């Protein structure tokens, strides 16, 4: 009964979404205030309907209702509760419901908190969201229905893929999807503005918090996914340039560009058409990324099997959304004229440079990801583009970005001089050069470049904060007062840059990782990275829905044991899969990582020993970036846009950004 109600709620959501779309988009043109007021209400009811469908699907998973095909195929009564819930979105059909649920949540949020928007803009934004949502809900309902029943039901489900039975992966898809889908709001704002034919500073101020919140989620989602693959897949890698990873990286890159560009629209009313294009591109890339991978066109390890008829439906939806918005862009955007002018050296130009590099990186990743199917179509040669290509092409574009991103925030708007900016960060420059020289001596040029670049970004952002608080030039108490009066947006931006610098440090550090594969008998040891690694014992241990073999490995430094790790091999019964559960110890600056890979017939244990310098910094960096975004989001100006407050902040003597 519950699944039928869910199915009905899904159908109801389709109808409500289209009603929301049509009324929202056309009511402002008809100047019908009652219809305009209906749009937010429709968005809320659409959200409730899809929420009910989503809950019904989760319910079916929780009570293990195997008459629902989706539950029978991807769940099992033996799986712990949390994975019965997360299993709901661990497959294609269920993840579509989650996707639509988040999209409707975006519409409902605009409906609930968009009270300060002009009524016509708000109705149009909600309308655009409704149309997009309606299309994908229709897809879910017709060709990818998660509520399909089977009879007779199997005695037990096929189970949840063991590598997905992990807390990291339970939360990774919802967070990542919120990031992807959140950009739909920036997209809807762009479309609504194109329809209205007007973009001004106010538009920039409305759009930025939405872009910022999605960016935070996307950053956190990518970080979570990378961390998950690092500790579950057992080979210590954190990024594989897989099409699915690239699909998440692309909107992140253009979304980062969008965040920076929207500031220019807000402060200087420039770069309008470009910002609109970025908003369209970011959401289009989110859509294409999610769905091209599902259509099976791209070869990926994250396979969601999808039938070809689904592929065509998806392509048609993508064509309507992306093509329609770009058609509107081609017609309306040429009329958007810039109001503010700026000198070649200014904050505006620095943000343009940021955009050029971010978009170039995005273009390179895009070409590399799509090259295999296209080369087959155009030249009849099937080939693969792997990590060698991406490493070679992304690095030269990232290096100048790192160089520029430290200077940009120090330049004033309109017209700037390089000298005062550089005077403020000479300390960071000297430190970076010293790190680079020392590390070139000790390691290799690429690692040294990365470490120096990371230090450069982190220190220059810190010295920016120090400069703003006049640290050392006035009393400490005065500096603290200045720090507290500093706009949170400025603090958040500095934190975001620090996070990126920390991430660069982590990636550079990981190039120094050392590893070793050894077969040890109990009592034997191996040497790696200055430590001695001893296998003490192999024993059985119970698990909730698996049996496991555990190896006890003691790591000692100069004969002094300081750590014992317990990597295990887990034997799952439904489905029959063995996973290697890596044991990782971190001290914040280095990971010690041991995988129990196999028990050879000859006895003993095959162990993979790894020492990963600075690996934790990769995830700390991602987290700090997301926190920086969140901090900036909590800035009062973004929430209410009250100009009165802004004046007050100036009186307090803090440099306006």
């Amino acid at each position, binding site marked *: 009964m519950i699944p039928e109600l869910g199915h009905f709620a899904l159908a109801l959501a389709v109808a409500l979404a289209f009603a929301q779309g049509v009324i929202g988009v056309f009511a402002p043109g008809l100047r019908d205030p009652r219809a305009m007021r209906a749009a937010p209400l429709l968005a809320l009811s659409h959200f409730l309907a899809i929420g009910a469908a989503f809950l019904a699907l989760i319910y079916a998973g929780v009570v293990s209702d195997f008459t629902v095909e989706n539950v029978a195929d991807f769940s099992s009564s033996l799986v712990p509760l949390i994975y019965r819930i997360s299993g709901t979105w661990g497959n294609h059909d269920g993840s579509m419901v989650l996707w639509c649920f988040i999209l409707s949540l975006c519409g409902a949020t605009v409906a609930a908190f968009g009270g300060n928007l002009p009524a016509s803009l708000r109705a149009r934004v909600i309308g655009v969201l409704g149309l997009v949502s309606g299309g994908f809900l229709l897809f879910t309902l017709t060709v990818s229905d998660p509520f399909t029943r089977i009879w007779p039901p199997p005695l037990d489900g096929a189970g949840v893929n063991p590598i997905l039975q992990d807390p990291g992966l339970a939360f990774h898809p919802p967070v990542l999807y919120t990031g992807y889908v959140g950009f739909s709001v920036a997209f809807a704002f762009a479309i609504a503005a194109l329809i209205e034919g007007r973009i001004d500073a106010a538009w920039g101020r409305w759009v930025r918090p939405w872009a910022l919140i999605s960016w935070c989620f996307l950053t956190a989602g990518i970080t979570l996914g990378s961390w998950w693959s690092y500790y579950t897949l057992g*080979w*210590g890698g954190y990024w594989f340039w897989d099409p699915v990873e690239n699909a998440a990286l692309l909107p992140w890159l253009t979304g980062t560009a969008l965040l920076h560009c929207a500031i220019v629209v807000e402060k200087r009313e420039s770069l309008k*058409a470009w910002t609109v*294009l970025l908003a*369209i*591109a970011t959401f*289009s890339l989110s859509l294409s990324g999610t769905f*091209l991978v599902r*259509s*099976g*066109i*791209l*070869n990926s390890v994250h396979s969601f099997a999808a039938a*070809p008829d689904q*592929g*065509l439906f998806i*392509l048609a939806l*993508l*064509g309507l959304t*992306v*093509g329609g918005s*770009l*058609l509107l*862009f*081609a017609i309306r*955007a*040429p*009329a958007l004229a810039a109001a503010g002018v700026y000198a070649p050296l200014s904050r505006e130009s620095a943000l343009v440079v940021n955009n050029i590099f971010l978009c170039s990186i995005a273009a390179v990743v895009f070409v590399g990801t799509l090259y*295999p*199917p*296209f080369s*087959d*179509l155009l030249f009849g*040669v*099937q*080939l*693969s583009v*792997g*990590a*060698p*290509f991406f*490493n*070679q092409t992304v690095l030269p574009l990232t290096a100048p970005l790192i160089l520029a991103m430290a200077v940009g925030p120090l330049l004033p708007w309109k017209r700037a001089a390089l000298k005062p900016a550089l005077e403020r960060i000479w300390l960071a420059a000297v430190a970076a050069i010293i790190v680079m020289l020392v590390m070139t001596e000790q390691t*290799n040029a690429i690692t040294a470049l990365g470490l120096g670049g990371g230090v450069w970004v982190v220190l220059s952002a810190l010295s920016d904060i120090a400069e703003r608080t006049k640290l050392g030039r006035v009393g400490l108490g005065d500096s603290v007062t200045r720090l507290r009066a500093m706009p949170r947006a400025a603090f958040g931006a500095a934190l975001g840059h620090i996070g990126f610098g920390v991430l660069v440090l982590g990636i550079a550090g990981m190039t120094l*990782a050392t*590893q*070793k*594969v050894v077969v040890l008998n109990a009592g034997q040891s191996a040497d790696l990275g200055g430590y001695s690694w001893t296998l003490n014992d192999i024993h059985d241990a119970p698990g909730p829905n698996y049996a496991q073999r555990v190896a006890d490995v003691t790591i000692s430094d100069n004969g002094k044991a300081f750590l014992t790790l317990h990597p295990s091999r887990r034997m799952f019964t439904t489905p029959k899969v063995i996973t290697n559960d890596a044991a990782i110890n971190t001290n914040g600056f280095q990971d010690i990582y041991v995988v129990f890979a196999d028990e050879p017939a000859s006895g003993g244990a095959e162990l*993979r020993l790894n020492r990963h310098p600075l690996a934790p910094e990769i995830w700390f960096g991602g987290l700090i970036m997301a926190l920086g975004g969140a901090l900036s989001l909590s800035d009062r100006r973004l929430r209410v846009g009250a100009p009165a407050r802004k004046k007050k902040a100036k009186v307090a003597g803090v440099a306006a950004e």
Partner: protein
Amino acid sequence: MNTTRRLLFTAPLAAVALGGAAFYTILERMEANKYDPHALPSPLIGKKPPAFNLPGLNGAAGFANTDIAAPPRPMLVNWFASWCLPCAEEAPMMAQLAKTGLPIWGIAYQDNAAALANYFAQYGNPYARLALDTPGLTAINWGVYGVPETYLIDKDGIVRWRWAGAITDDVLANGLNPLLAKYS
């Protein structure tokens, strides 16, 4: 409003339309089983490897494409790296193959001399000759997907087989051995 600006703003639409048409064709071809995105064929199969000339370890001679243009008997070119775990796992297999007298030439991908010396001290050096692709450009020309990766080259210097990933007993029995018998 000038025409150039209008045309410029139509460019994204035109690009997306072209891309969409291409994807439609690709989907059609997938349905007709003319295209399998999960296949990993190498563009080198049936051809000679592209021109390259790589240095060896510590000033020793490396090798160039001309050196493998007409080997006296079929041989393997194995791409590997000291930092690559699957390569280390593949090392015993390489040693075993080298013992059978099959010439294996190694190309170390993005590696350095010190790390390679450690690697060989630990896992042995099965390679008849060794070259270093430190910048990684030759790897792109070959279409290397990742390390380890192994190519079978016949007596005419033509690539007959490519295996991306470590060679296992199963790959040896069902992939490499039949081809070795065919081309020797």
